């Protein structure tokens, strides 16, 4: 694997390989000695143009448990906040000998630009770009769903026939996009539930059903319910009238929680707005996988970095650096 930029173009076998290697990584994390020597001598740069402590420390933990050297390069207080271009930053990292760059950026497509520009030879991992994709989040979500469903028997399995319902701000969500493509690749049936204002204008090419009514969606049953974070500034752009109305129509309140099937699980990518898109009862219930997702995130990111850096690169993958 040369880069991990999106799940749209991630083949089923590559996705399963990441999930299965993540299982191996998870096993090692049960040991007292969690650190593996796999990436000793490799340098992983966390290049964060947006604040995201959760994602950054997850990648940092993953790289460190594989014995890689980690450099954290954050926008605030660095040259990035002084208007340095992506090109100059990338070339600086290249000159420092980065083997992998984990990039979080507010602009959709920035990881692809970094990977295809010829500025850098390092592998690029997309840690969330604008409103485009967040592939490791989708992989950890899929890992979590699979683990809850199949437990120790997870390896090699996909999500064929599982019904996953994603609720919230689809329009601005990179988590939703990455999940839609990956879940479809793995055979799950995806339903999106959102206010019509928060669904992209044309999703005819997406392998999903779109519903506007959460109760209708829940009545049909769902094996996994994924609640997305709602950003309150959306109210000001007339996407929905008030917090209270959003919560009433699209929030997972205690009543809706009790209507879920016995085996249904509730995911949330965090950070949660308790009382808005998810009630405290739901967040703290046995169905909630929120903390599993955090734990699994480290395993999945270990797998991604390992597959990017530990394997021999194909000759074709070597690209000249301009």
């Amino acid at each position, binding site marked *: 694997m040369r880069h991990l930029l999106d799940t*749209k173009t991630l083949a089923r076998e590559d996705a399963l390989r990441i999930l299965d290697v993540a299982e191996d990584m998870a096993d090692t994390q049960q040991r007292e000695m969690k650190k593996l020597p796999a990436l000793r001598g490799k340098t992983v740069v966390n290049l964060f143009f947006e604040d995201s402590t959760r994602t950054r420390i997850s990648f940092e933990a993953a790289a460190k448990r594989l014995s890689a050297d980690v450099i954290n390069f954050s926008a605030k207080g660095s040259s990035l906040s002084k208007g340095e*271009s*992506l*090109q100059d930053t990338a070339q600086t990292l290249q000159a420092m000998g980065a083997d992998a760059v984990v990039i979080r*950026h*507010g*602009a*959709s*497509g*920035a990881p*692809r*630009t970094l990977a*295809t*520009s010829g500025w850098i030879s390092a592998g690029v991992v997309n840690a969330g*770009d*604008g*409103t*485009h*994709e967040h592939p490791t989040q989708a992989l950890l979500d899929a890992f979590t769903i699979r683990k809850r469903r199949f437990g120790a028997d997870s390896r090699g399995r996909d999500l064929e026939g599982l019904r996953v319902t994603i609720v919230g701000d689809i329009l601005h969500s*990179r988590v939703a*996009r990455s999940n839609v493509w990956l879940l479809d690749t793995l055979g799950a049936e995806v339903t999106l539930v959102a206010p019509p204002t928060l669904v*992209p*204008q*044309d*999703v*005819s*090419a*997406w392998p999903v059903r779109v519903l506007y009514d959460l109760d209708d969606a829940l009545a049909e049953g769902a094996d996994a319910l994924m609640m997305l974070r709602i950003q309150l500034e959306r109210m000001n752009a007339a996407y929905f009238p008030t917090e209270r109305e959003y919560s009433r129509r699209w929030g997972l309140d205690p009543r809706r929680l009790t209507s879920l099937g016995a085996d249904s699980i509730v995911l949330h990518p965090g950070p949660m707005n308790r009382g808005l898109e998810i009630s405290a009862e739901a967040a703290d219930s046995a169905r909630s996988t929120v903390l599993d997702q955090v734990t699994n995130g480290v395993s999945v990111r270990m797998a991604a970095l390992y597959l990017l850096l530990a394997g021999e690169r194909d000759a074709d993958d070597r690209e000249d650096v301009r």
Partner: protein
Amino acid sequence: MTPQQGSGTVLIIRGARLEGGDAADLRIEDGVIAEVGHGLSAPGASVADADGLIALPGLVDLHTHLREPGYEASETVLTGSRAAAAGGYAAVFAMPNTSPVADTAGVVEQELALGEAAGYVHVQPIGAVTVGQRGERLAELGAMADSRARVRVFSDDGFCVWDPLIMRRALEYVKAFDGVIAQHAQDPRLTEGAQLNEGAVSAELGLAGWPAVAEESIIARDVLLAEHVGSRLHVCHLSTAGSVDIVRWAKKRGVHVTAEVTPHHLLLTDELARGYDARFKVNPPLRREEDVQAVREGLADGTIDIVATDHAPHPAEAKACEWQAAANGMVGLESALRVVHQAMVETGLLEWADVARVMSRTPARIGRLDGYGTPLEPGAPASLVLYDPSATGPFTAADLRGRSVNSPYLGRELPGSVRWTIHRGAVTVRDGELQELGA
């Protein structure tokens, strides 16, 4: 008007197919077409062998950004004029979004003088509609019209004249001197932060959508305003199927509306944005395949009157970055005729005589620019392009003659080749080579 050039020299063009029709010779003398016929000769004349070449009246671009004054790192009047000549142009209308904005007689006269000094093409300034293109107060339109630049086209291009009252007043006011308002149709509220045509591709790429309705709703409003006050309206870079329908409807009603389409909207679609290569970022954005088909049909049936380039040079760093941070715009002067050849002539939608109409005659007429877009007849100014329709090959950086290289066509196969460009008797491109003038 540009002084006549090339006086004293005689040029015989031998065997050119006039507007794609029958072959004839042209004798050019003292900056005019002196004679059209067969077997022409003149003592001491230089000869251009135009066997197999098509002669078109020198092209006229109603929509060019020359960036000077203010943004000389992207383009200057001289470099943009050279790019224009390389593309077969004899005249370009320069948009006013310079720094300072061309919203006074002084700035438009400066622009005119820079064009005259460069000499490659006639540079016809367009005046801003409102002071600073801010959409609040009318600029001194009359002063620009009465200036030496004789401005007849007014536009806030880059910004929409959004306030309906300001738009109405502008449309009315310019009737006093036969002016026209060229509107950049874009509802600003519907396009806040917009990055790409709103549709299936923007949904997948996570780029904020630029909906077709933001263009169409302004065009619909403007044609109704133009009808109400009996004024001339020109629609810049029309890009959607719905816009074609609205203009077609307005023309049926007798509204004095004209419309332009860019070469890139005739050929390229939003699918090209998938790699986030900012060379394909432009405003209005590349649209869907259905829109490309609709604007082609609109140009073929006369709903759309002209092709205009929206030549928009930007320095490399404005494009070598993430999509969202990149500047909108593409250079287009050097490639326009070849793109129209591919999109409209090879498809059978236009004949070469139609190309002469949409790329020379009608843009000159809309802009009230005398002495350009004239027929290839004795007595007419000698501004023409000789084009080889049989040439093929990729479009490359070597084809670009301006200061910027933000072309979406680099590496793409395009038919044809501009062999000669002549501006009022002065040869600006000779056998494919851009000439050094004033040497």
